[in-house]
């Protein structure tokens, strides 16, 4: 019996006979050392690269003799879970929104509203008797002191700018303020609509849009809304029935959105306009204790988008989309803001500005260029369509597992997914559609850096009196070339596809000739479909950069190997391996040296950077001469120098010590390991590096 850790010869034989196909995983270093006997007779020592002979080192001549070599065994690393990287704290605000702060100074305390004016200036209305409208510029701008734009108003409650026209809602009247001589002072106070009567004695809010106005009034315990024409003053009155402190913003198609205060059931929205059959009312939020303000930031003939801000410093997006049955209302919390929002206004450019109660802190919220957000949704009879402000990345969002739909009975993947040609909308199939009046949520899986804002969408379908049945969405075929394609920059940079998306061309089974077995191209993915062995490239690579995406089944194990040399019984005899693994379910995940992203058995990543099972993981593998880097999902897993003293010491302390050809080749094939588990690859591309 040899020293500790070395099995008896009999045990070695039994193991060799029963183990079948040599496996690199799930075996102790000792057992591996015993079974990993190369067939070549004159194997070079592990000390020198292939083709070189290191002097003064005895060369074991036979497999048996080699098996008797005393291999220094490193202490087994204590079993420990590879820790997950501390989760990145989500940003406090949706990255698709950017806030700019301005300071307004010198305004009175009784501000009731504000509106954008020319050249970055603002009109701020004060309340009470003989009230004024002030023209103010942000602090730091010349002539920033407020000056009177209009005066003598009777308890104004709101001021709105629309198409360069200024409107004020005061007691008994909707008034337009006109500066006829361009001196930034209103000299014409035109009556747009008379709103006299006890029920109109407490005006609250005003919206103006496309020749119509809507005004809300507080009455005893409830709110009233009036929609009227700017030209002839004719009005329609809407009793909002139990709503309180109603704020109003323009909608589309002659309608306006009213947001009323929270009661025990939460905030409500009301859709009012000149066509009674198209009006509706719906609960929108969970109960919140504070008042909200809203402004429309974008609109089309059939949709409108809003930002809502609360006094307790929360922001949300709301979208209203026309549908055959009525409207689809979408809500998504967008994060926290750092000041109270007491008043708000929308600017000409679709920005959302809000002012705090002290009327001194002005914040302007703008869309962040290039960052996508969900602008709204549309219901279909067989699912829901999300509309995005920016196109998805080329191959992003195609898989159903990328999305989740939450209904009353739980979370599930959509039945299938269809991305529009412009990648600005995604349809999530969900038979039998979104139930009437139900609330469902759709959100994209992924981490905060690579996906849409993580907060789920709440979607409500509202039916109107003139609603029709929903249409069914017809599935669009996925365009070719969206995945497994190179950009012009990649072409110019010397990249080549190793997987064309439709075949296994360029690959073969290791150690075999003939058609590829056990692997197939399916739906744009290179998939392990059965036994047949590892897959290797026809071509050999010395220095290169490799990129690919992998996805593995639960408990799965695979790997990416390079510098693989023909003529051995396994690719791992010669090729270093970047591990592919389900860290959570596979035992190898208990040891960081064999966890996903590791240089198998030699270099360990510090954190588990894999995405949740089912999601795609992105690999960058750099081999530049002796220098190697493993990257996973944008995080460096490890780096090492082949053939360095450190590398040799690690190899000598590992199971590869008994594999004299391990890691010594300077060129070889790239391999994808068939470990018997489900694994998929896509977007496999390589850039050879000339040295």
């Amino acid at each position, binding site marked *: 019996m040899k020293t500790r850790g070395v099995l008896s010869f009999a045990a070695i034989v039994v193991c060799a006979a029963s183990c079948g196909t040599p496996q690199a995983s799930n075996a102790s270093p000792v057992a591996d050392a015993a079974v990993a006997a190369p067939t070549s007779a004159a194997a070079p020592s592990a000390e020198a690269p292939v083709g070189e002979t290191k002097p003064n080192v005895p060369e074991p001549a036979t497999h048996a003799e080699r098996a008797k070599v005393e291999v220094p065994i490193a202490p087994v690393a204590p079993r420990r879970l590879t820790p997950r990287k501390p989760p990145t704290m989500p940003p406090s605000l949706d990255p698709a929104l950017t806030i700019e702060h301005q300071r307004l100074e010198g305004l009175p305390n009784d501000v009731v509203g504000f509106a954008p004016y020319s050249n970055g200036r603002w009109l701020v209305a004060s309340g009470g008797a003989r009230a004024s409208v002030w023209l103010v510029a942000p602090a730091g701008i010349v002539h920033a002191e407020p000056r009177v734009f209009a005066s*003598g*108003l*009777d308890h104004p409650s709101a001021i709105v700018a629309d198409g360069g026209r200024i409107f004020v809602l005061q007691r008994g009247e909707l008034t337009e303020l006109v500066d006829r001589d361009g001196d930034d002072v209103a*000299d014409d*106070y035109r009556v747009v609509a*008379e709103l006299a009567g006890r029920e109109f004695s407490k005006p609250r809010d005003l919206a103006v849009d496309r020749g119509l106005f809507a005004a809300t009034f507080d009455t005893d315990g409830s709110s009233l809304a009036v929609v009227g024409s700017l030209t002839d003053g004719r009005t329609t009155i809407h009793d909002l029935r139990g709503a309180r402190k109603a704020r109003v913003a323009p909608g589309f198609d002659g309608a306006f959105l009213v947001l009323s205060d929270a009661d025990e059931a939460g905030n409500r929205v009301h859709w009012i306009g000149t066509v009674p059959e198209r009006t509706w009312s719906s609960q929108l939020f969970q109960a919140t204790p504070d008042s909200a303000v809203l402004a429309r930031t974008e609109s089309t003939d059939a949709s409108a988008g809003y930002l809502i801000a609360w006094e307790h410093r929360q922001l949300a997006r709301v979208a209203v989309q026309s549908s055959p049955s009525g409207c689809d209302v979408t809500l998504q919390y967008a994060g926290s803001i750092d000041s109270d929002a007491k008043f708000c206004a929308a600017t000409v450019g679709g920005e959302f500005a809000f002012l705090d109660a002290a009327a001194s802190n002005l914040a302007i919220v703008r869309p962040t260029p290039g960052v996508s957000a969900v602008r709204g949704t549309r219901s279909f009879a067989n699912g829901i369509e999300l509309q995005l402000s920016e196109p998805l990345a080329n191959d992003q969002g195609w898989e159903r597992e990328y999305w989740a739909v939450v209904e009353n009975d739980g979370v599930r993947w959509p039945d299938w997914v269809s991305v529009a040609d412009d990648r600005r909308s995604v349809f999530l199939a969900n038979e039998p559609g979104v139930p009437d009046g139900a609330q469902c949520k759709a959100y994209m899986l992924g981490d905060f850096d690579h996906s849409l804002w993580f907060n789920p969408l709440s979607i409500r379908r509202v039916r109107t009196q003139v609603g029709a049945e929903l249409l069914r969405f017809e599935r669009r075929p996925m365009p070719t070339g969206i995945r497994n394609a190179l950009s012009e920059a990649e072409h110019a940079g010397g990249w080549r596809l190793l997987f064309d998306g439709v075949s296994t061309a360029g690959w073969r089974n290791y150690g075999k000739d003939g058609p590829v077995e056990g692997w197939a191209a399916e739906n744009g993915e290179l998939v392990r479909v059965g036994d047949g062995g590892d897959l290797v490239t026809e071509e050999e690579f010395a220095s290169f950069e490799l990129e690919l995406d992998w996805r593995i089944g639960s408990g799965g194990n695979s790997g990416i190997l390079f510098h693989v040399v023909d003529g051995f019984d396994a690719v791992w005899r010669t090729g270093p391996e970047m591990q592919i693994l389900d860290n959570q379910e596979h035992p190898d995940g208990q040891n960081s040296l064999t966890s996903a992203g590791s240089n198998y058995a030699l270099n360990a990543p510090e954190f588990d950077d894999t995405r949740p099972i089912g999601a795609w993981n992105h690999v960058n593998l750099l081999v530049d001469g002796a220098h190697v880097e493993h990257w996973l999902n944008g995080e460096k897993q490890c780096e090492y120098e082949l053939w360095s003293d450190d590398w040799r010491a690690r190899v000598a302390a590992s199971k590869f010590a008994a594999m004299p050809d391990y890691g010594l080749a300077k060129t070889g094939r790239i391999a994808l390991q068939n470990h018997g588990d489900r694994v998929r690859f896509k977007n496999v591309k390589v850039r050879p590096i000339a040295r």
Partner: protein
Amino acid sequence: MNSGVVLLALCAALVPVDRGGDRPSDPWVFRGAWNGHERVLVARLAGDLGVIYDLEHASMLTAFAGDVRDGEHGFEIDAARYTDGPEGAVWWIEEGGSAKLADARFKGHRLQNGQVTLRYELVTESGARIQIEETPEFETPESFDADPSSVAPWLVPGLIGLRRSFKATGIPPGVRVALLVRARCVGYVDYDRILPEGEREIEVGGKTLRELYARLLIEPDNGTHEIHFFFEPGQEAK
């Protein structure tokens, strides 16, 4: 005290006075409620003269002295009211030999050259829209005429004068607009434009004043029509 009606055949329109910032308060034109009227416009023309218009009927409710303060139910006048105007509808349209009350709407006010101009719109039975502009202004006997006593013996220095100037456009041919006026004053000056419906002398506080009910006629000549009232300082409407 002289009293009487002076009919003058003067046709010259007075040049608007540019008062600039010479008003007793800022703002000097403001909206609010007064005396049960929900929508009024107050114009403080001078320290001794303010006017209040009822915007529901496009009519002048009162001329007063001093300031207004904010009360629980609207403005309250500190000092005396010189005179009250007629309540309710005051605009008439004479068409086809008959006169009917007009549907009069207040359309807003304009601040120009330091003066305030109120705009009204009347709609005839035939649907024609008549635009009326009224510019109220403070004046003194001296600003009215360099030699006021030559105009009328009662026009003496120290009186508080109110000029109401009207300009109309869009009056169809054959149509005449009439404004019902009521005033208690020392005297008034018109240009043969009024049709008195009642006039009498009254004794108020030891002073003899005139009380006038009349219609101011506005012809379709697109000209300016004026009427001037002069009040005794300290006189009271009631």
